[in-house]
């Protein structure tokens, strides 16, 4: 095992061990790892199984059920576009098209250069500001296709997008 594998395992164990709530389950542990690492590498499945006493199969069953888990590393930036009915009525498809064109993606997925990951979200909870999109944890409401394009262009591609200070 290389030292980077060991470092990854360390991060995973750390994430599993430092959950703030008293009740620790397979799901809560997977969420904690996804938050800390950004995705679920095979080591995460093994470590969660070990920690919770579940089988690897059982952990897989849970991980494959919830649509927010990723099994490959995400791009530097993650952009989530809402396609819920409110956003749909107010132009979500046009925004999606603009984003897909800008990224050269036919739908959900990662760009080949691993700079961007595009995800469709069923509702970002910002329906009152629809249409909405989420860029690296920063929420934008009443977005226009033009604005979505500009947002993507203005990004620096080495670090996730930060909220204004």
């Amino acid at each position, binding site marked *: 095992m290389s030292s980077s594998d060991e470092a990854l395992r360390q991060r995973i164990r750390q994430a599993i061990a430092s959950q703030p709530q008293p009740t620790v389950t397979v799901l809560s542990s997977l969420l904690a790892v996804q938050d800390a690492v950004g995705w679920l590498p095979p080591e995460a499945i093994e470590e969660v199984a070990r920690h919770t006493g579940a089988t690897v199969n059982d952990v*897989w069953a849970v991980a494959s059920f919830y649509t927010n888990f990723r099994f490959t590393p995400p791009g530097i930036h993650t952009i989530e576009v809402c396609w819920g009915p409110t956003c749909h009525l107010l132009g979500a498809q046009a925004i999606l098209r603009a984003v897909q064109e800008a990224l050269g993606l036919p739908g959900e997925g990662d760009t080949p250069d691993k700079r961007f990951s595009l995800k469709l979200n069923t509702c970002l909870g910002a329906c*009152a500001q629809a249409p909405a999109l989420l860029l690296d944890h920063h929420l934008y409401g009443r977005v226009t296709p033009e604005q979505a394009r500009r947002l993507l262009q203005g990004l620096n591609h080495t670090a996730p997008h930060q909220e204004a200070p």
Partner: protein
Amino acid sequence: MTTYATLAQEARAHWAALHERPWIRVGTAICGKAAGAQEVLHALRRAVERRGIPATVTPVGCIGLCFAEPLVDIQKPGRPRIFYQKVTPHLAATLVEDYLLQDNPRPDLALGTLGGRVEGIAPLEEHPAWKPQVRIATRNCGTVEPANLAHYIANGGYQGLAKALTEMKPAQVIEEVTKSGLRGRGGAAFSTGAKWNFLARAPGPVKYILVNCEEGDPGAFNDKGILESDPFTLIEGCTIAGYATGATKGYVFIRHGHEGPITFTRKAIQEAYKAGLLGKNILGSAFSFDMEVALTGESYVSGEETALMEAIEGKRAMPRSRPPFPAQVGLWGKPSNINNVKTLSYVPEVVARGGAWFASIGTEKSKGTAIVCLSGQVARPGWYEVPFGLTLRRVVEDIGGGTGTGRPVKLLQTGGPLGGVLGAERLDIALDFDGMAQAGAIFGSGGIIVADTATCAVDLVRNLVAFCQFESCGKCFPCRLGFTHMLEVLDRIAAGQGRPSDLEAMRTIGQAMSLGSLCGHGQLGFNPVHSALRFCAEDFRIHLEERRCPTGACEPRLSLPKRTRPEPVGGWYARHSYAHH
């Protein structure tokens, strides 16, 4: 030992001190953030600091007027709160200069005042979006700092719990809640008092209160809104429920990713423990109660009662068959009650002010208030707490200000994607659990999405069915395959390639789903199509016979994710699709 009296005294002193200098509150809940409130907050802090003004700048939650975000209110000592709408960082600096330094309240920029009058500014109480409101569960939202215990107590918080613990037996609390007529706000509209009774009667030393804030329905954001703006009202309500039913622990179930509600609920729970309002011997009584936040991954069905328990146990959120019912065999096999956030958020006031007071608001069978979320083609999107009995027209036109597009209302989509649609001809029905059900709509958890005449019913329903397809948990095949099949049919109708038999095909599928599905997700699955056929049959006819979309809204190729959740055969999945990535 902390007593309620000492807590209240300290809180009131703290609250009074806050009002001795100018107090600037900025709405920074999810809608505020989406509108840029974070930048406004920083601009205000910078401006105040630069000019050396002794003012307090506080991020608060959402007061419900999302259309006005970013919303800032400034209260000078002894003056009313003045609300300013659509504030930009630049405007923020202007307000600091003009109002704080020059004492010019800038009536031209103001939305309204609360708690008094200011020359040239209309009181918010007269604003059409505020006037019909009776704010009970949302009374503190946007006024207090979320998760600030002193703010909560200074505004009357924990009076209800203190009263219950010192003056009432558990059975009396249940009686009071029953008398109030409070019904569950999560969709089922079952009597809360009766529900608590089931749990109170269930034997056993360990019982749970589960609070449902999955709230995955697009168009609904009031549960998250309460947790993000005033989590203590839920925590107090849940603690009272625990006392009344003999429950030992409460879980607040929130969808992962909703950072505001998660952070503030966790913080408020911590604060409550520190003050002796959770944990052992609460306020010196014999009653002990614990609470924690449990997160779910993204899965709409995890909001279903029994699926929610599976998710808290850390498994796939797949519904269980009933019986046994949760009040007998619930979370980890223990008796459990599942309540919606809004339902429990009424409880502190119901107990503090009495069931009769609550029952005096609303209609005969729907007591109290409805917390509606308005979104879509509406001039004033937001969330509003109004007495039951108001007509949908008053909600949409008076509060919401109409469509704001110049076109009339065509449809309302209520009660989440499975609630289907309601035609504009039903706008005069009253907001009421039973009245709305009779009119063919679901009040659900209060989401109302407004669609104007530019909307095509086929397009909207296709979106709703795509959502349901994506979210089917996959446990039963009528639901799993039914939605997939129905979506295929809708796809071709939208593309102008429908077949004459298509409506009949969807009916047959719908029937199979309602008969053969385990939970409401599949059982109600035909509802979106069914309701649209009822109110907008013409849209379907034009698609099928004239092979065109009447409004031009339908696009043949939509980016709607299709998904079937894989079988839980992890080993196979691991070997084949994962290990070689």
